[in-house]
């Protein structure tokens, strides 16, 4: 039977969404003849997490729990994974392209002497007597895409970018559990001396990667804009009209007389798009605009143009983001 293993990342005992995203995507792309296994390492495994993995598509949950696996450590995790593959290797082994996944996956691929595709954004499978993984990744700044295969060694490994695939649960699914003891004779040479939590720092607008901006049309909605910005780790910006009305400070102003910004995402609500504003933000990588006026100039530069009432849309966006974040 062909099989696919998915590494399930946890952070201080909390399942990270990427593992469930990968299970869901594999279940969608593969028929029932392929067994999908969730691979969990940690200090303990909770029933609700077993359920989550099962509902998202795992036929089997292979797990190793040990004190040494409580927090991620390259040495212990690579050892635990290769222990699981001592007798039989899966055809495919997928890991999230998170900081942890990108530390673990190359270490494991080198130990198993097999191929690894980095940071894929599309997964396809060819099923014959053999299961072939086709992993596609953006290259050179995202203009070019390359589809990578690994035909002669197993497991065919890939790291996959988070938040690409939708989590989909089917609560009628069942799975079997397989516990594997942790065996590691050597000690890790890396020791954690201390850790400090990252707190959300206020960044200067021109350095922000995500900007949530509002104009006259949402001048009473800035508390909601701030909530959305906090949820996604972005910054709030404003148009001239809002700053002139003393609703936001001058340091939040985008445009000719304010700051010129070039974030990865510029989400503009209720901004008509006067040229002086547009000249300060049109180099943003992705511009999402919501406005009730179909003739708003902002739509000329927007990548996503939505005609709707931003005052109604914003509270709903906030709720949607909160719902997704509760997975974390």
């Amino acid at each position: 039977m062909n099989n696919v293993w998915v590494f399930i990342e946890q952070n201080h005992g909390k399942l990270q969404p990427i593992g469930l995203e990968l299970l869901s995507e594999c279940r969608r792309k593969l028929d029932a003849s392929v067994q999908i296994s969730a691979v969990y390492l940690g200090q303990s495994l909770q029933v609700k997490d077993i359920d989550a993995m099962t509902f998202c598509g795992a036929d089997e949950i292979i797990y190793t729990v040990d004190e040494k696996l409580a927090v991620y450590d390259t040495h212990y995790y690579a050892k635990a994974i290769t222990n699981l593959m001592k007798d039989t290797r899966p055809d495919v082994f997928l890991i999230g392209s998170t900081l942890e996944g990108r530390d673990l996956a190359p270490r494991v691929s080198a130990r198993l002497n097999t191929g690894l595709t980095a940071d894929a954004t599309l997964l396809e499978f060819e099923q014959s007597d053999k299961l072939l993984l086709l992993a596609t990744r953006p290259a050179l700044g995202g203009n070019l895409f390359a589809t990578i295969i690994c035909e002669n060694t197993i497991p065919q490994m890939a790291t996959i970018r988070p938040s690409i695939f939708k989590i989909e649960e089917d609560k009628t699914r069942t799975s079997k559990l397989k516990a594997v003891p942790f065996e590691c004779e050597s000690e890790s040479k890396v020791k954690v001396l201390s850790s400090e939590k990252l707190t959300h720092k206020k960044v200067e607008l021109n350095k922000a990667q995500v900007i949530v901006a509002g104009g006259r049309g949402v001048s009473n909605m800035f508390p909601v804009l701030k909530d959305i910005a906090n949820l996604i780790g972005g910054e709030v910006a404003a148009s001239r009209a809002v700053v002139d009305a003393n609703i936001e400070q001058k340091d939040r102003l985008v445009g000719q007389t304010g700051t010129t910004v070039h974030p990865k995402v510029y989400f503009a609500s209720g901004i008509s798009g006067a040229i002086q504003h547009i000249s300060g933000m049109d180099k943003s990588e992705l511009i999402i605009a919501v406005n009730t006026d179909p003739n708003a100039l902002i739509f000329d530069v927007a990548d996503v143009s939505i005609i709707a009432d931003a005052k109604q849309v914003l509270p709903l966006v906030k709720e949607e983001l909160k719902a997704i974040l509760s997975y974390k």
Partner: protein
Amino acid sequence: MDIIVLVKQVPDTTEIKIDKETNTLIRAGVQSIVNPNDLAGVEEALKLKARYGGTVSVVTMGPMQAESMLVELYGRGVDACYLLSDRAFAGSDTWATSTILSSFLKTLKYDLIIAGYQAIDGDTAQVGPQVAEFLNIPQVTYLSEIVALNGRELIVKKRTDSEILTLSVELPVLVTTLADMNKPRYMNAWDIYHNTDKKVHLVTFNDLNIDPSHIGLKGSPTKVKKTYVKQVQAKSEKVVMTPEDAAKWITKLLYPYMEVKNHE
């Protein structure tokens, strides 16, 4: 402390364009640069040498044209530069590249190996950890700071998604660095003058003890099956939507960027 820095010469990707007819890269006129993450590693190594003494060597694999990059690094004060270049190496994927690099590194003396977190032309972040595995030494990736050296213990800081960790790790170790860790120094007249005689050491297949079936295009476990260019999207059409649908769509668009901030 003897330090080796792994560097790669890369095309300046901000200048790269794709020929829409042939789906290939237009390389003509594109400048080659030292991969920014690697350059920060060179700078870190030079700073450590100034603090604790020792040597800094640079190792790169690539075509002969990479020699000019190494000459430039001599001008920054590096002690020795090695260029691993051979037609047999061409087309190597990360596993094969790491096989070649580690087989050479085994012949050198080192306490610390610094590699850039990832190269801007590949973005894989794989060669560092794979080399560490082949050398059977620990790794610390995505380093934000080297704090101190206490005897045979290196104290470093590393960022995760939610924390900054202070770690101690026993030498020898491989670490990977980020471009914003250091501002690279300029070449200075003293180093340029005093290093003009220094030669780049060329290492070819015959100098190494590797199975030829493990390297190059043929020896690489991964293969590129196809490449294609993303269709250029016109600025979008205006869509009339209910607030509910609009909110769902916007959330879907915003969600992937939540990580960006966390990784800064």
